[in-house]
Structure formats: C-alpha cells, structure tokens
C-alpha cells in the first residue's frame, strides 16, 4: 500500500513537472530556430563576440532598438530559437552608423561600451566577379564615399580607378552594403577570418555553422 502511494505521488509530481514546462515548449514551438544567412545576421557593435554567450546575456528588452537613430536594429522573432527577441543588424536592409547609443543603453553585459575603431562586427568582403568597377572598369565608388572610417577601412585599389579594396581598419558596420547599387550585393559583411576578397571555389562557400 505504501509503495503504491509513493508511486502515485511520484507520478503526480512528474506530471506537474511536465506541466510546468508546457509554456516554455509552447513559446519554443512558436519560434523555431531557422538559420539565417550569416552576412544578413550581424551582431550589434560592442556585442559579446560569441553568439551563444550573447544569447545567454541578452534579456530581450529591446532598448538597443529603441535608441537606434537609423532603426537598423531588428529583432529575431518567428525564426529566433535560442536567440528569440535578441537584436541583430541586416546591413543590406539598414546599416549601423556607429553612433554607440545601443552599447550605452544596454543594461546587461551583452553590449559593452567600445570605441568606434575597436568595434568588431566583422569585415566587408568584396566579390570582384560581381563588383561593377572590378568587372568592367565602371565608375562607382559608393562604398568608399559612404565609409564612416575613411581610408583606413576601404579605399581604391590604385589611384582613382574606382576599384574598391577593403583594408584592415574596417569594423564591419555595413554602410557600404546598404549603399551598394549593384542588386547582387558584391559587398557583404563576413567574419574577419574569411578575408576581404571573396574566393570562388568548392571549399570556401561552406557556411560557418
């Protein structure tokens, strides 16, 4: 008799424990993880470098979005998964202007105050097989003209012939991506290790996740 009662109470507690997880499961079902293309999902300036550490630190309060003057900060919603309600930037849609407001307002350690030149959102990478001046000596230079960091981040390859080349000073704000007039977007933000020139080959197109 005693054992039966013990088993009954054990069953009841297990059921209760499962019931307490239901709301979390529901919210997770509503927002399954969908892997975005990495160059359209850039972390904010001053963010913790590791995406998992960032998801652990960010409470999803949306303050960074509420202070962003160009409204470039958007939030992972239906496709969020672990990163539900965490902020990111899609530079092809709207790019960061490096105003530092988001890192000042963030209550947690997800974003920490960083000088502009120490920001590491990635680095711009140019696909020379698609960039108009590189392909057929066209006249453009939009990316060089818009860059908030100037010469040390992006400049012309040689003299004044409009072929842009990314330098080491680039912090990956993505202004060049937003302004690029070429529809195929030959310039994109990638992680620093992938380099500033797109390589076409079998191995290099593999994504990092």
């Amino acid at each position, binding site marked *: 008799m005693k054992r039966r009662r013990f088993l009954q109470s054990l069953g009841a507690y297990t059921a209760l424990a499962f019931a307490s997880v239901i*709301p979390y499961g529901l919210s997770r079902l509503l927002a399954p993880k969908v892997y975005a293309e990495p160059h359209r999902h850039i972390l904010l300036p001053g963010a913790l470098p590791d995406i998992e550490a960032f998801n652990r630190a960010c409470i999803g309060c949306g303050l960074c979005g509420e202070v962003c003057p160009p409204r470039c900060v958007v939030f992972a919603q239906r496709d969020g998964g672990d990163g539900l309600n965490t902020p990111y930037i899609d530079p092809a849609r709207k790019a960061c202007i490096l105003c530092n407001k988001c890192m000042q307002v963030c209550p947690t*350690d997800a974003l920490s105050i960083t000088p502009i030149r120490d920001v590491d959102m990635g680095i711009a990478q140019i696909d020379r097989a698609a960039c108009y001046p590189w392909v057929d000596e066209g006249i453009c230079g939009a990316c060089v003209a818009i860059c908030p960091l100037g010469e040390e981040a992006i400049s012309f390859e040689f003299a004044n012939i409009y072929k842009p080349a990314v330098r080491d000073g680039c912090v990956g704000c993505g202004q060049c991506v937003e302004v690029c007039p070429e529809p195929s977007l030959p310039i994109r933000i990638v992680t620093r290790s992938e380099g500033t020139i797109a390589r076409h080959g079998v191995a290099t197109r593999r994504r990092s996740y």
Partner: protein
Amino acid sequence: MQNNIVKSYLPRHLNKLRWLVLASIFAMLVLLPFLHLYQTYVAAHAYDLLFPHEKMIYDSMEWLTSPFVSDAEHELDAIKGTTWSGNLFGLQVSDPLAVLSQISASISVYWPFLLTALIPLVVTLVLGRVFCGWICPATFIYELNDTLAGWLRRAGVPLGDREFDKRTKYLVLAAGLLLSMLLGSIMTAAIYPPAIIGRELYYAIAQGGFGVGAVFFILTILFDLLVARRGFCRYVCPGGALYSLLGRYRLLRIQRVVSACNDCKKCNVTCEFGLDPLHDGFGQECNNCTACIAVCPTDALEFKLALKDGPYQGPGHLGHDYRREQQIKSES
C-alpha cells in the same frame, strides 16, 4: 436610526488610482515607440521625404513634445524601454525576474545589471506583489478581459472557472531558470506577459509588425477566459511567482476589521486572485490591489503594518452568524 453622514474613507478610492496608474503605464508603452519613430525622423532631417502617415506621426509627436523638449532627437532619450528593463531619466530599472534569469542563463553575475533591480526588489519586499496589481501592463488587459468574462457570464455564455494548485507557478519559475541554464537563452522572457506586452507593442509600432509573443499572449488571454479566472497570473506566471516569494514577509498588508464586517462576501467575489479576505486568508499571493477595499460596503478592510497575516478572527460582528453565536452564548 440611519447615520446620514458619509464618512470619507480614502483607501476605498485607491482602486481608481490603481486603474489610472495601469492605464497610464500602458499608454506610455504605446507612446514610447511613436516617440522613437519621431526621434528617428528628426535625426534623418528629411521631413519632406516622409510618407503621409509618417508625417502624421511626426506632426502629432511634435505637437505633444514641443512644450517639454527643444532638442527632440536627444532629449527624448530620457524615458526609454519597458517594464522589463527601462531607463527613467538616467536611472536604469529592471525586472528582478530579468536579473535572475540572466544570472541563471549566463551562470555569472554582472553587477551593474544586478543593481538595476534593486529598487523593484526593495519595493516588493516592503509592499509585496504590487508590481502585479499596480504596474504590470498585462494586468491592465487581463483585468479588462475579466470584466468581459463577467459580462459574458451574465449573458449566459458558459466559461470555465477551474481551480489549479497555486504552487504550479513556482515550479514554472524553477523550470524556466533551469531551462535558461541548459538551453543558453533567457526562456522566462518569452512567456512573461509584461515583457511580451512591452516588446510586442514596440515591434508592432516601430518594427513593422507583431512577433510571436503576441500569439502567446492571445493564448494566455484565452486561458484566462475559457479555463480559469486570471489563470495565467495565478498558476503560471514566473514573475508572479518570484514577486510572491519576495512579498511573503511584506510590511504592508490588508486586514479585515472584524467589528465592521457583515459577512457579505463581496471581497471574495471581487478578488481576481481567488483569495479569501472574508476568512482573513490573504497570504503571499495578495498584491495589495485594493479591489476588495473598494468593494467593501462597510469599510471593513484596511491597511496595516505587519510581517504576517493575523489568524481567522471569526464571523463579522455585523453579520447573522455572529449574532447567532452571541445569542447561544447568552442563553447558555
């Protein structure tokens, strides 16, 4: 002889003040995204390029704020955020649940963030679960929803009124903290209604549409309407659980004055949290919302300062039960 002099009993009007506070906080959460849009339009210096509906937002927000600020782009940064975490004139205030979840998710303590929860923490320790009754923007909608449920019941629509174990929400809180730790993301933020409301209003107004939180919130409203009265707050909400635990030994409590009580039971009916003021059963769930004080016809409920609820004081002295007891006593 009837006493025609109406005594002014101020706590009775606290419920109206509470509604004013709830409504103004909700209105603030709606207004802030519009102010943010206005700021971005000002920062872009491009009034002529705005769409007509954006011009309408610009003009109305300019009309609203121009008496108070001269430099809208920067000065409007003074009030930002939601009840989950916000900025009030340089003072950062966060929900204790946000801090607790973040600590368990990142398995480390970030002190500047911990300190932002200090003010709500002290307020909860002294006043109890007041956030739930007086501030929470979800409470505003849930109480309207409860009023709607009352109308529907009166019209004859069968709605559920189930009772569950109140302790479920503590389990939900524990499960949320554990899952945050295991999965590496802050799980409580996704199911905590005030966080959802603040965030979703911002998404809807400034980001172009509701996110998934809106779906979850509608599910909680349906749960309240069809399954249990104020069911989410009473049985599921992890924030309510945390505030209840913190407010267990609160200083400010509502107490029944047994000499003025007439056992009319209005307090028990009006209490949306299903507490039992008639039998002195308040407990840690009471959020000092003062709805029972407002509804009491004999002003038999009042605030007191104590660390514990008193014991059951017996039937109210103006009621039948008490009179019968006295009769039996005098006969014997």
